[in-house]
């Protein structure tokens, strides 16, 4: 919880700075936009959090977003599939990708980094192949479906600000994810195997199945993210749609308290971490007018964050040890 307070405090500080430094940061339009983007990135951050909790990594998220995000409009508009069939297809593909990652990692004992790095190249390559590298989109159609990403829910008596629809999606996903991780035995198994896979296995946990589950959750949420992202922007270019999104997701999860060593993770933390990154991006654009240094700023803040976290952790361990000894 202390950790969450730290990152939440940082988010508040950045927001306050932005409000002071930039008039347009405060506009209802900008805040809505930030919340919508936080919701979209939050969904994929929650997905990768499950993999990180097991001590693994998924680098393929951005490419899964590309595959699904381009695949859905392609199936609907180019192949003229029905909506249910297309949605079923992208769901099966997303789940299947996670299943394949999980099986390769647990049964063949391949390293998650390599498996998902290959996935990163593979899925984007496939997408560019079947679309012929052409931009795909919904055009003027599918207005009803697009409400999922672009819709807004008015708040009574509040003018100039409405809740973006993806936020509702995020809240639903987050609540389910948090309950799963913290209140079910399977969540506990994931945390346990992330801490110490051998000890978890020796305690009767089917560590292989649980690891596979984590990768399935990750890819499925990446697929959902792909759908939401493409509904948001209406059209997608296979060459760069979702590019680097896995890095945003991983960074958000780590900022939010997931340890890359495994065994630690908080869903709320992931959302705060996502918000922090997106606010930073926003601030860089609004305040400096140099969006090209955006990555440098975000990189610096994340690095500073994890360094501070590590130092605090060391201090806590020392203090605890001293206290244990004194008893």
């Amino acid at each position: 919880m202390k950790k969450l307070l730290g990152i939440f405090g940082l988010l508040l500080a950045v927001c306050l700075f932005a409000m002071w430094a930039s008039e347009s940061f405060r506009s209802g339009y900008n805040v809505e936009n930030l919340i919508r983007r936080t919701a979209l990135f939050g969904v994929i951050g929650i997905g990768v959090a499950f993999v990180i909790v097991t001590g693994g990594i998924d680098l393929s998220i951005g490419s899964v977003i590309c595959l699904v995000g381009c695949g859905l409009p392609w199936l609907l508009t180019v192949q003229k599939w029905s909506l249910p069939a297309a949605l079923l297809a992208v769901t099966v593909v997303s789940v299947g990708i996670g299943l394949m990652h999980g099986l390769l990692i647990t049964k063949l004992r391949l390293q998650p980094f390599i498996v998902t790095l290959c996935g990163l190249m593979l899925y984007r390559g496939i997408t560019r192949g079947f679309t012929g590298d052409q931009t795909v989109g919904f055009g003027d159609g599918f207005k009803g479906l697009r409400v999922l990403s672009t819709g807004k829910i008015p708040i009574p008596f509040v003018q100039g600000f409405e809740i973006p629809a993806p936020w509702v999606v995020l809240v639903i996903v987050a609540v389910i994810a948090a309950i799963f991780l913290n209140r079910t035995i399977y969540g506990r198994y994931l945390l346990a195997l992330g801490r110490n896979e051998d000890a978890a296995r020796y305690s009767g946990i089917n560590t292989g199945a649980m690891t596979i589950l984590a990768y399935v959750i990750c890819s499925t949420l990446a697929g959902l993210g792909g759908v939401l992202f493409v509904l948001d922007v209406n059209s997608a270019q296979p060459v760069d749609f979702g590019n680097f999104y896995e890095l945003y997701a991983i960074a958000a999860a780590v900022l939010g308290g997931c340890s890359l060593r495994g065994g630690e993770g908080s869903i709320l933390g992931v959302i705060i971490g996502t918000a922090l990154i997106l606010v930073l991006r926003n601030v860089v654009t609004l305040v400096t007018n140099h969006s090209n240094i955006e990555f440098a700023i975000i990189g610096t803040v994340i690095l500073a964050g994890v360094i501070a976290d590590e130092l605090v952790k060391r201090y806590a361990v020392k203090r605890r040890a001293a206290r244990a000894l004194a008893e």
Partner: protein
Amino acid sequence: MPLLEARSLTKSFPGVRALKGVSLTVQQGEVLAVIGENGAGKSTLMKILAGVQTADSGEILLDGRSVALRSVYDALASGIALIHQELNLADNLDVAANIFLGREPRRFGLMDTARMQREARQFLDAVGLDVKPDTLVSTLAIGQQQLVEIAKALSTRARVLIMDEPTSSLSAREADNLFKVIRDLRARGVSIVYISHRLGEVKLLADRVTVLRDGENSGDLSREEVSHAAMVKLMVGRDLSQFYPHTPHQAGEVALQVERLRTPAHPRHEVSFQIRAGEIVGLAGLVGAGRTEVLLSLFGVTPALGGTIRVGGREVSPRSPQAAIEAGLALVPEDRKKQGVLLEMPVRENVSLASLRRDQRGGFLNQRRETELSAGMISAMRIKTPSDRQVVQFLSGGNQQKVVLGKWLAIQPRVLFLDEPTRGIDVGAKQEIYKLMEELAHQGVAILFVSSEMEEILGMSDRVLVMHEGRLTGELPRHELSEEAVMHLATGLATSLTA
């Protein structure tokens, strides 16, 4: 003046005071044995002398002058070399490369391989190892690899050679050869600090014995005073008969029946035995005899290749720990920190881990049950912890082991396997573990435990099974138990199949 002297060294780790003011002297050209139970502080002391760790306080003198050993490099420069229990060779390199690792002779900035091979020869001769310097280390037997380690230490001009349990993985013949090398070195003026809990070896080799108990000096014995009884008394601080709380057990029905079990480690040997409810059976043997492998196969970690296993008369074939647990088996594994506990997780979540599935409510955690369970185990097992939210890492080894035991008692197993249950825990906690084993046996749990500590095997077992190189070489009832009888079977010198 002693060559090496340590004065009141102290060292603490999170949750445990390993050394509470230990002193020791080593004369030139003597073999000093340092003995003590597991957890007495032997290894910590040696690591400090070898610069692997630094003491919190105290002083180390070499030739009467105070020295600071802040790193292994410092210690080597002072002529002190440590040979670890687990050998530290790069087995993908050849013998000569290992001997000179990090100190390779160079020529024009490149390694002078020819000179390295040439100079390696003299050190190999010194330890009586007759292999070519360009032999790959991975092709050598364990005993030979150990001699390479010693040669490596000699090549650094070591004057004090610290050997930590050097015979723990050697065959009897390799051990004899090692003793010869040690005597040669002594004759050449090298001092040896010899750590062992094999009292027979100590009697054979040592000029003097320093005994540690619970992180303190408990006494020194001169060559004339060294006897088995004297050493044990100083090690445990009391008579053995009082130390092991063994009482007669009412053996019930057969709880575990193993027939012709073949493990992946020793696929050609079949192992058969049975254990009754309420019995404590020791599984003895040398390191590498296949004892752990039998437990791992029974528990489904490395499933058996063949044979039948019956638990309470019902045939089971555990392909995973999960299946073994469902059949009523539980295992306290050998490596507590790697396989037993989740170090960074709280006591509560460790204790409940194996019973979460049973106590679940449609997949959800039963948190009230979990809290009750851990509170119950903390009091029943007398686990010393500030609260059940305490992270296991900060508990002492003995309390960590109790957490592992508690995890298994929560699922009420019919058969409990314990692999080296008291390794690395202090004397007081040991006795508590023994008492818990006793209580469990009286409750009708069948217990099979593996131990490399002879005293423990002799003290706690109703019956002892002995293994040698993958085979079960014999079985000894309590009234026939003796160190000699067990060692006879463990070294493969005899087989008695009363079973």
